[in-house]
């Protein structure tokens, strides 16, 4: 299993979650976060915004569907401008469902 953490534009969240749900990736967690990337924030006129609001989507998927999920997120999050976000992939050793105590997703 792998954990996908995607930091994306807040307005792309719904598009991504719809696309993921229709592909069968229903489970996910969303967190509102603030951060900055390589461009160190953004300057609009005379105002410099050091950190920008983003949404962090966190989901755990089976190894064989990781590429599919990442491609879906990338397609929906893409605008071509700075600030589209990043996707991080990290290993997950085990997952348990609290209700049943069973291992697995």
């Amino acid at each position, binding site marked *: 299993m792998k954990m996908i953490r995607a930091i994306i534009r807040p307005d792309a969240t719904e598009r991504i979650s719809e696309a993921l749900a229709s592909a069968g990736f229903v489970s996910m967690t969303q967190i509102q976060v603030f951060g900055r990337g390589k461009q160190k924030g953004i300057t609009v006129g005379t105002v410099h915004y050091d950190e920008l609001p983003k949404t962090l989507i966190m989901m755990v998927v089976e190894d064989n569907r990781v590429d599919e999920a990442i491609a879906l997120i990338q397609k929906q999050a893409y605008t071509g401008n700075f600030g589209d976000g990043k996707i991080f992939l990290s290993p997950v050793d085990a997952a*348990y469902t*609290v209700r049943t105590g069973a291992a697995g997703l």
Partner: protein
Amino acid sequence: MKEIIAMIRPKKVSATRNALVQLGYTCLTGIAVRGRGNQCGIAEEVGVTIHTDALYSSPAVGMRYVPKRMLSVIVPDDSIEKVKNAIIAVNQTGQIGDGKIFICPIEGALRVRTGEAGEAAIL
């Protein structure tokens, strides 16, 4: 070291915290998150009444996301089972929406105040 990430019901946070303190793990991080599971979000999970007109006029039945708490606990390798079982024991209600637990590897840790690294930093 492993990170135990538990998505649990918001009202179970203090019970979980007390159970972890009894095991000797006082450190944890909690974040208010929203999410959905295999059921794609269900309205019955939250203790609010939804007006019937609103329920039937909306195309989607139920709610899109359910508020949850995400707890992150870093534990040494040998106590993963103990902590995992304690979290399951406290949070199990048998209803859908009890949550998930993920166990992820952690490569290192550093206590900022003293500069201790590795397992000394988390205990």
